[in-house]
């Protein structure tokens, strides 16, 4: 091991590279975190553009702008860009930036692997976009009209763009598995002396659970899409009934990944809230231990309830009852988290800066989305709601507040730390109000549309659904374009602004606030001492 120990003994053996080499060869957790966040921002706008096209088409009944295949291609593309391109990399960006600062480590445990797990992403993103674009070229085959769930037999019949998509999913999966291994190794081995697991900041705990979930489920999805690839090209019949296979098998493999994936998207944002709410309520987090227990419970139970996405496949009564009860049980630990947040705010000296505004809005809207989730978990009711716009409204109400708004809160909360400049609070609040109004205007009417019977993933609809669709589309335009304001605020903050103190927020606690704003290129080269009262 002599060659490795020489590297460890000399952390400054390399000069800090500049220009494009600084980013391409970066092993610095802060630079890689920035790259992740910028990549996520770019993907957010691409996924948002496809959502705008979908809503523009649904503005009126009939087929105006798109054709049915292109519409379904956009639906597929929107989901994959947002989930794999925007939300997961953004959460990984926050993890890269904040975890070493929070636990007093000089960097991530495996800096070169960190570089690899980011730089796989642009390649994967390119494959993903190619899977959308390729059918428009001569000989490009048919468009991916399956939706992000990629159910066979349709996904076996789609043209070569599906192969691009399968390889994109493989690459994205490798990237997130590598990032997860890195995060777990960092959290388990590199905490400052004296920081036991139960003194670790909650954001780190949420990422520990998230990373384990990713390691457990992403390989199963990789196996599933590999079988799909073999069915398409190598004559196997995993999913082909005529060859002795079963298309339902793919649904099980997909949702074994797909359901824990929603907790992968949710938990990092819960971690952000666990820092934002105590900061602006000026009280320590209520129930630290119960938060840790609740998120482990959510992760564990969340692994074994996947088939509630497939109630209509004809499972036995015993099986659907099990999946129904398991799903409803998850609302208990999630409810516990929500009550902990409310108890943290109770009698706190609250102020409402932009991150806190998002936090309060999340608690309200995420709870609402959670309740419509309980409705969908009930088997006889779900038979009615299945594949309707009600499902679309439900998962946007949990994913948008639960994941995206939590990331926005985190970005506003930590942006002064990253850049050394305060963001424009007036513009931040303006962004919050436009964003949240647009969001509710877009998705609230979709509950009514779904209950009245409008199916999802269909380009056209009955004229009786026109009014709510018009409202929804107008809301979507407000919601979509409000993100240009976010872009403006972020650029403005990077370029200048009122200098931020190292503590930034009056009520902020934790190691990340003890380094300067912006932090120097290398931090915590000598680990800090953890004082007794400094937990959480």
């Amino acid at each position: 091991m002599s060659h490795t120990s020489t590297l460890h003994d000399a952390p400054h053996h390399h000069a800090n590279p500049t220009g494009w080499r600084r980013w391409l060869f970066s092993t610095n957790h802060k630079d890689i975190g920035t790259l992740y966040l910028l990549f996520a921002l770019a993907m957010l706008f691409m996924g948002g553009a496809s959502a705008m096209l979908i809503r523009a088409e649904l503005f009126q009944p009939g087929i105006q702008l798109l054709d049915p295949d292109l519409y379904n291609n956009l639906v597929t593309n929107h989901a994959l860009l947002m989930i794999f391109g925007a939300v997961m990399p953004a959460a990984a960006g926050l993890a890269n930036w904040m975890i070493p600062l929070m636990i007093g480590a000089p960097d991530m445990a495996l800096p070169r692997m960190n570089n690899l797990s980011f730089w796989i992403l642009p390649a994967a993103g390119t494959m993903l976009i190619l899977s959308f674009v390729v059918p428009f070229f001569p000989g490009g085959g048919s468009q991916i009209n399956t939706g992000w769930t990629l159910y066979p037999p349709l996904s076996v019949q789609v043209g070569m763009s599906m192969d691009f998509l399968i390889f994109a999913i493989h690459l994205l999966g490798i990237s997130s598995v590598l990032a997860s291994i890195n995060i777990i190794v960092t959290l388990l081995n590199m905490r400052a002396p004296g920081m036991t697991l139960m003194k670790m900041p909650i954001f780190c705990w949420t990422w520990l659970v998230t990373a384990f979930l990713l390691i457990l489920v992403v390989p199963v999805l990789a196996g599933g899409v590999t079988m799909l690839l073999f069915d398409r090209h190598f004559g196997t019949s995993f999913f082909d009934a005529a060859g002795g296979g079963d298309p339902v098998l793919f649904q099980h493999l997909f949702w074994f990944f797909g359901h824990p994936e929603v907790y992968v998207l949710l938990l990092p944002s819960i971690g952000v809230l666990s820092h934002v709410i105590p900061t602006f309520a000026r009280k320590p987090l209520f129930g630290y231990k119960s938060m840790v227990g609740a998120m482990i419970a959510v992760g564990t139970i969340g692994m074994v309830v996947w088939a509630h996405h497939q109630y209509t496949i004809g499972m036995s009564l015993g099986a659907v009852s099990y999946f129904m009860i398991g799903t409803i049980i998850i609302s208990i630990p999630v409810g516990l988290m929500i009550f902990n947040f409310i108890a943290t705010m109770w009698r706190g000296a609250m102020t409402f800066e932009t991150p806190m505004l998002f936090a309060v809005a999340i608690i309200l809207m995420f709870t609402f989305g959670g309740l419509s989730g309980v409705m969908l978990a009930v088997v006889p009711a779900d038979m009615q709601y299945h594949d309707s716009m009600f499902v679309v409204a439900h998962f946007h109400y949990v994913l948008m507040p639960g994941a995206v708004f939590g990331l926005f809160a985190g970005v506003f909360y930590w942006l002064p730390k990253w850049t050394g400049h305060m963001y424009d609070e007036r513009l931040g609040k303006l962004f919050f109000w436009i964003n949240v109004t647009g969001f509710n205007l877009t998705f609230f009417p979709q509950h009514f549309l779904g209950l009245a019977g409008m199916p999802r993933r269909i380009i056209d609809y009955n004229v009786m659904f026109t009014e709510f669709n018009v409202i929804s589309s107008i809301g979507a335009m407000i919601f979509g374009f409000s993100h240009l304001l976010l872009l403006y605020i972020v650029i403005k903050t990077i370029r200048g602004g009122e200098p931020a103190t190292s503590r930034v927020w009056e009520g902020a606690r934790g190691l990340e606030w003890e380094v300067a704003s912006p932090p120097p290129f290398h931090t915590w080269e000598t680990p800090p001492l953890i004082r007794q009262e400094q937990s959480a």
Partner: protein
Amino acid sequence: MNPAAQARNKRRTVWLLSLLVLGMFGFGFALMPLYDLLCQVTGIQSVSLRSAGEAVAEPLSIREDSRLITIKFDTSVHPNLPWDFQPLERHLQVHPGKLYQVNFAARNRSSASVTGQAIPSVAPWQATAFLNKLECFCFNRQTLAGGASVEMPLRFMISPDLPPEIRSLTLSYSLMKPETPAPELAPELAPESAPESARHEKG
């Protein structure tokens, strides 16, 4: 913690996590055998157990029944087999306890001799045990010379023990090219050898 010990701990964690990743990738592929094992242990009627139960002949009942049951026939051909394959009658109204025959027409579209195997399935699956096949082309593999056509008989009877709530059922055949050499079939499963020698009854 000294750097060497920390490096050792990191390496150990990385190896354990990598094994976990490989294990979960394998788990995706192990799901099917695990599911079959679970069904055998707990006695859940899995798809493979259902079709195995179908081949076991039920004691024939000679009671006739006045009920009229609709039985529909459905066929699909795997793309690896260049055959056309259709029932000559799409559906029949039958009395339980009475013997019926339906012919299926098969044609080899290619110029080479090809062997196919038909896999039956019944919907709703609860009816599977009550559909008795006395003679079926699905008992054996069928070989057709290039360009040849053949009519293949299916003789069946629906048991009078069919639960009263089942009023119609669908018998569907998936025809595919078997990729392993033909196994020795148990004689009671193969009362007739080849369709060319099969007797055709009018009815």
